[in-house]
């Protein structure tokens, strides 16, 4: 089921949480809504589910306008951050709930419901726990039960709100891989919300980066990382440092030193140059290089991170060099930028 979101706007008490967002989600896609808290990502997810109603705009499921449908008519599987399991019901009853509440005409017979619950427990790899109660399960198990419960109604769309937010790092990593595999097997159109960029990059086909109630960029993980559309995305995704530069007829100046004609087509005036730590190279030449004083050196996994103090404003630039690189005794070093992004300031 493909989903089309048209100019969706949501205000809470006159305070806009979402400013006219449009987005197309392809059938069978695994899409991540990524952003810092307050970016509107959860609001967008709840609007798709029908748990909130938009101030204006529409959500289409296929060709059908779902905006006027209530949450129970939309047939979406929703997995809540804190699982929201019914704690007075056994695991099997939790999973069967969505089938048991159907009206008599569409409700499967009881033995079919029970078999279906068992199958779903098998699918989420918890075959033996049907008779247990939610409080007897670990966080990761509860999350999988919540997913099985959402899948039981054969949803058109699967929506997950910070699905791994409350789990510890190791379980989170396992569940991520597992969910990705499950998605490939079942092929549901899946949208999940996360503030963890690693999670978004690793799991999804496409990432929607959101900030302050707007979509900043939509794209495949590579595209988002390599060609960020705005300084916000560049700063939010991956490590990066920003330098204040000036653009003059396509030529970029750091202080009074020219870095070369790096910004063709950009308007003249102050700008921000964003660089990732790995996209700089140690050089002996000073032409077109960024020179600075080494302020600190840290070991970071397989790399050595150098903090370079640049310019008279004391801006810090992070540079990663292989750990084998000898650190010169000279405190001043020059680095040549290999890849960068320049965005007009403001």
């Amino acid at each position, binding site marked *: 089921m493909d989903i089309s979101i048209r100019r969706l706007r949501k205000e809470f008490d006159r305070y806009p949480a979402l400013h006219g967002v449009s987005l197309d989600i392809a059938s069978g896609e695994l899409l991540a809504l990524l952003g810092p808290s307050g970016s509107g990502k959860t609001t967008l997810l709840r609007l798709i589910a029908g748990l909130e109603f938009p101030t204006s705009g529409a959500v289409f499921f296929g060709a059908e306008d779902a905006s006027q449908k209530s949450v129970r008519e939309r047939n979406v599987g929703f997995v809540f951050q804190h699982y929201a399991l*019914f704690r007075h019901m056994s695991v099997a009853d939790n999973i069967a709930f969505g089938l048991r509440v159907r009206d008599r005409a569409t409700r499967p017979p009881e033995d079919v419901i029970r078999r279906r619950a068992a199958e779903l427990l098998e699918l989420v790899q918890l075959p033996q726990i049907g008779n247990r109660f939610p409080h007897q399960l670990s966080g990761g198990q509860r999350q999988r039960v919540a997913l099985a419960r959402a899948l039981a109604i054969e949803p058109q769309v699967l929506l997950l709100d910070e699905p791994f937010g409350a789990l510890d790092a190791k379980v989170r990593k396992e569940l991520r891989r597992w969910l990705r595999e499950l998605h490939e097997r079942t092929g549901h159109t899946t949208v999940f919300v996360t503030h963890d960029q690693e999670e978004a990059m690793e799991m999804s086909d496409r990432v929607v980066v959101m900030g302050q109630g707007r979509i900043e960029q939509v794209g495949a993980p590579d595209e988002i990382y390599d060609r960020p559309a705005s300084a916000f995305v560049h700063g939010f995704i991956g490590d990066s440092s920003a330098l204040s530069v000036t653009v003059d007829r396509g030529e970029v100046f750091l202080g009074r030193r020219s870095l070369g004609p790096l910004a063709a087509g950009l308007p003249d005036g102050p700008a921000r140059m964003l660089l990732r730590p790995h996209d700089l190279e140690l050089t002996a030449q000073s032409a077109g290089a960024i020179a600075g004083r080494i302020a600190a050196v840290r070991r970071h996994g397989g790399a050595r991170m150098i903090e370079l103090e640049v310019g008279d404003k004391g801006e810090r630039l992070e540079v990663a060099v292989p750990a084998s690189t000898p650190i010169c005794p000279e405190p001043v070093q020059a680095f040549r930028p290999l890849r960068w992004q320049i965005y007009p300031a403001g």
Partner: protein
Amino acid sequence: MTAALLPRFAAGTLPRLRQPSVLPGFGLTLGFTLLYLSAVVLVPLGALVAKAAGLGISDFAALATDPRTLAALRLSFLAALAAASINAVFGVLVAWVLVRYDFPLRRVVDAVIDLPFALPTAVAGIALTALYAPNGWVGQYLAPLGLKIAYTPLGVVAALTFVGLPFVVRTVEPVLRDLDRDVEEAAATLGASRRQTVFRVVLPALLPSILTGFALALARAVGEYGSVIFIAGNIPYVSEIAPLLIVIRLEEYDYAAATALAAEMLGIAFLMLLTINLIQAVGRRRLGRHA
């Protein structure tokens, strides 16, 4: 280390009253609790039981099965059960409205709930009698319908309902407030109607607190005296409650009968509350510790 220092006490042979805990003061608090409970509850009740035991079995049996006594006990407990049941239904409704909706004068309504706690029960009894008497504000409209409330067992139920309401409201309210909204939202995404959500998800989650409120309202109703004696009419065998009969026996200097009736009430009340507690214990085991 500890095991080596205490070699003689193999596991299980040392009576372990207290589990090691990071919370200090177990001995002190338990000691105080036992002392306090003894002084305030157990000693007076123990004296009552001792006094009743002094009667001898045949005397006690004769007093306990006196028809007037049995009628009074029946009325007291049945009326209390009815009142607590009514409160269990409408108290939940009141708690629901107070927690879930915002309306003008909500704070006032909230405060009014507690009035039955604060009002001298005799005042409540007189007010209810004035309302429900055949010439009262409400009674005059019910009388033509053949419905008599004051001076009948119905009046007893009305008074007990009045005094018991706050117990249910105040025990259910905080639990309902803490109930996560996402559980109800989950039910809705799974296709449950509002009605199904309330009956299958919300009420089962509230059940332990409803039971607690029910038990409290029941206990209060069984012991209630002041408000009932005004509205009940106190006709022997018809609308005479057990606590009143105890007072009547005392005024007749018939201490033996009063003691026997009191001991009987105590026994029945204890069994009822024990049953409710057992039901709750079973529920807790299913729901986990935080139920």
